[in-house]
């Protein structure tokens, strides 16, 4: 694979994987969850 393809793959997976985990953790750690 060309470096550009590898870079873009990491970018896409990082963006969506990282974004999903970030927002999920943010949701789970909200102080209002048990109210």
């Amino acid at each position, binding site marked *: 694979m060309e470096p550009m393809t590898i870079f873009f793959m990491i970018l*896409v997976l990082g963006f969506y994987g990282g974004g999903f985990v970030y927002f999920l953790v943010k949701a789970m750690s909200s102080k209002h969850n048990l109210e």
Partner: protein
Amino acid sequence: MEGSSKSTFGSRFGFICAAIGMAVGTGNIWRFPRVTAANGGGAFLIALTIAIFVWAIPLLIAEMVIAKKTRLGTVGAIRDFMGKKFTWIGGWLGAAALGIMFYYSVVSGWTLRYFVYALQGAFSNAGTPEATEVIWEGFLSSPGQTIFFHFLAMLIGGFIIYKGVAGGIEKATKVMIPTLFVLITATMLRGITLPGATDGLVFLFTPNLGDLANPTVWLEAFTQAAWSTGAGWALLMTYAVYTKEKEDLGVNCFVIGFGDVLIGIIAAMAILPTVYALSETVELAEAALASGNNGLIFVYLTALFGNMPGGTFIAAIFFLALAIAATSSLLSMIEVGVLNLQDAGFSRNKATIWICIVGFLAGVPSAYSINFLDNQDWVWGVALLISGLLISIVMMKYGVQKILDEEINHENADMKIGAWWGWCIRAFPVMFVGVFGWWVWQSIQWYPDDWWNPMEIFSPGTMFAQWAILIIVLLLLNNRLAELIRPGRMKEGKMSDEVPFEKMAKE
């Protein structure tokens, strides 16, 4: 309604699992890889990302706003949000979702059947598309089987809905969604470790930025964003009725949007490398990707599973993931009907039984005829774009800035949503004209001589005819529908302090 403990999600994780289950369906697994492959791979992912942010997430947030403010199903929610004379819009939202449910249950049945086929090892001796096509055609031409598995899908969905929100939907999706992530990831790991799999990854991730100049790439990306996330379908609007008073909107909708695309990308990383690695020629790989949703999954991929070392096991995992994705989406469609009937005075149990019986009977023609199913998929699939437009209009009529200030960025919000949300909602009609107009224009090209013919499967004529019938019926029933639904917590656009949600939930 049931007691409050059963009428709200017990936890935020439960709501998020249910909402991701609503969004992630068969379209993520069989449409996403195929459309991505057909539209430039990496370039399509860029366009899709923009579409998710300007189309899908703003609409998902809008749906949660309507649900949290009214705490009613689609019909009552729009009646209270826009006024009695617009009740028919709520009817449209509910009817379009149910129109999908009627045939989606049949598709869910297909996935269950193929999971059983995989467990039976039916693909191990069918290593060519010709052989798997015989299995597929044989299944489709056996109405007894297609109707039985449609019944089974509706039975499973109905059973979960019957058990209630916390005891049914939440409990089931808290198991189903993490399992789906694990199963589809396992399939992906097998796909990318096949010899020659890198061709598929190159095809998926190489960003040919020149493709972004192609309008079709953008139109397909916006269509995928709409159909994949379920934005504007009133499914999230229905689930959000059962959220807690202080529930956040923005973060939840971002989780749904990111999770939905992530599952699609993982599915694409499972399917495209498998297709490229195991197809004997590049032409065969391209034929697989050009064979439509059913052809790609039920004919070509099953043939490739037959050739793959450990293919029987991987096929079972893959079709189980597909069945989970389909069933979790089917739940939300059933719930749209159930909540509306509850609002009209039915008990939850009676409403579930009625919706499932009607859903089964109305789905039988689709189980019997693939042409009928394709027609319904076309008519109600495009109708959902209209549903999205109507929701954006609902927002604009109420006041975009007012909603942003008072409903979205409330004191308990976990994340402030910026003015971009309002811009996207206001710009929605323009985006709609582009995407909807493109589909209509395309379908005219498919039937240049008789595009008006309502008897053609994919013609504009059949769409407009069926929509017109629905709208006429809804307009005639408008006042009756408005009176049928119990009072909500809003009166003439204002919150009623007399009917707090917790009290309503206990009624």
